[in-house]
């Protein structure tokens, strides 16, 4: 798939293990990591001006970030379009075994604690929106606030929980991201 690398391409290839680490920490699933690594190099090798790039390493990671953003954005579309199938998928997924559940107990705890770090109103709006999948209008109706306010709570909830999740051990989290990617792949193949 990838053409035979040009000699100058070593400038990029020598960072491939670093790139692998970078993507692994953000994706978890080895297959997706490999796919993205391949995409990163494909993109770089397609760029005919690559030899004039002054900071190949920075360029490499810039491309990787772009592709990661795209990857996650596509995930949104899937979440949105498969709202109903979404729920069924995880639990018919046999890989989600008892053993796995025990393994992720600590991770689930981090997630639960992240919710607890939110102010009460935000916590409620965020939970109804993210764990119950009600629309902002519906959550607004339940709480007597406007959909825009709900959106504000969700935004704050996402930011605050992310801040918290970044603080907890990344090694702990890797198990969970494994599940995510397995899940997103299951949805993708539907």
């Amino acid at each position: 798939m990838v053409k035979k690398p040009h000699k100058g391409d070593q400038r990029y290839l020598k960072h491939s293990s670093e790139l692998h680490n970078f993507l692994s920490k953000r994706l978890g699933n080895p297959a997706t990591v490999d796919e993205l690594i391949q995409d990163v190099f494909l993109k770089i090798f397609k760029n005919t001006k690559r030899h004039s790039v002054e900071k190949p390493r920075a360029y490499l990671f810039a491309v990787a970030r772009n592709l990661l953003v795209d990857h996650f954005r596509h995930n949104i579309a899937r979440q949105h379009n498969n709202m109903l199938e979404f729920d069924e998928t995880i639990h018919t997924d046999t890989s989600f075994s008892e053993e796995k559940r025990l393994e992720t107990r600590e991770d689930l705890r981090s997630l639960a604690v992240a919710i607890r770090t939110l102010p009460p109103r935000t916590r409620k709006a965020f939970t109804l929106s993210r764990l119950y999948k009600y629309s902002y209008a519906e959550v607004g109706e339940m709480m007597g606030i406007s959909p825009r306010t709900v959106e504000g709570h969700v935004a704050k909830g996402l930011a605050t929980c992310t801040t918290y999740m970044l603080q907890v051990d990344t090694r702990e989290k890797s198990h969970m991201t494994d599940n995510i990617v397995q899940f997103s792949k299951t949805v993708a193949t539907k």
Partner: protein
Amino acid sequence: MTDKKTHIPDRALAEAGQWLARELEGNMSRTERADFEAWVDAYPDHQDAYIETHKTSILFSNQATKEGRQQLVEAAPELRPLIDECEDLSTLASKNSRLPFALGGKYGWISAIAACLLVVLVSGVIFFGNDPFANHYSTEVGELQTVMLEDGSIITLNTDTSLSVAFSDTERRILLKHGEAFFDVAKDKDRPFKVVAGKDIVQAVGTAFNVKKRADTTKVTVTEGVVEVKSEPFLGALTNKAGTNKASTNKVGPSGTISLAVGENLTISAAGTQNAVLSPLEVECIMAWRTGMLHFNGITLSNVVKELQYYAHKEIILTDEAVGELVVGGSLNTHNISAFLKGLELTFQIKVIERDTVIILSTITRQTDLSSI
């Protein structure tokens, strides 16, 4: 350098949260999408923040089932009260069919009344001075902007608007220098939310309202909850006009404040203060600017033009009084004002001429005079 995951700036994370919250609901406009792409491309920090925020979001999505929530409660029993509460709300919502949500629509939530407040009269100058901590937001002519504040409140700025935001432990202060803005206030009973527009102060705890400040008037419209308005001219002007007020429930309180409920509108000007109770449709017309629309009904063209001038890049000139006295009605897109004005030619005996910097409206008899322009 590439992997400082834990050093993503809070601001980038906050913004990523805002973008994702918008994106998750699936109703991003084309412009917003472009803005998002510009934002995410601007800095690696933004990309990292977006990626990490996304990961968090997916973790929650994975638990968004009955079993998933159960797992969370098992892992962290202290979460049970929250989940129980949400479970109750959820049961309640599914008992009432989904229909009320749809029908209640825009105004369903408005009925929820917010708590009330205290008012302190301080002038805008004392409020703000040269507060180095204040954040400033402004829009150009024709521009709309939505910002989320650190407390979760959301402000939408209409065209040619400028305001400052200063938060302290005891209050949230907004100085509306000029223009129009819609405030969707996050509840925080310990920190009242005050909008200072000249000599007028609008205060809320957690409500939604619109404030329009023009050179000679301030107009406040409430779309959710209750707000209190304090203004210097109140004591004199309103009591004189008390008999003409449609809203009998709203009178000047002992402290010189007027409290406004959902659907109420207050216009304060040197000429006096007018308080009106609006129909949901009228409220919607006032709020239409947020979608780039303006609705007029039975007002003179000179008044329409006066308002349009805030949105138009070109100067709109009425060459004679007769044009200005025409009574017009209708809806227009603020991004295409010249099309609207041009359209007037079809209905009225007027000529509309557009040049690089001006749009000239005149009665048809004057047409020849203008041919040299």
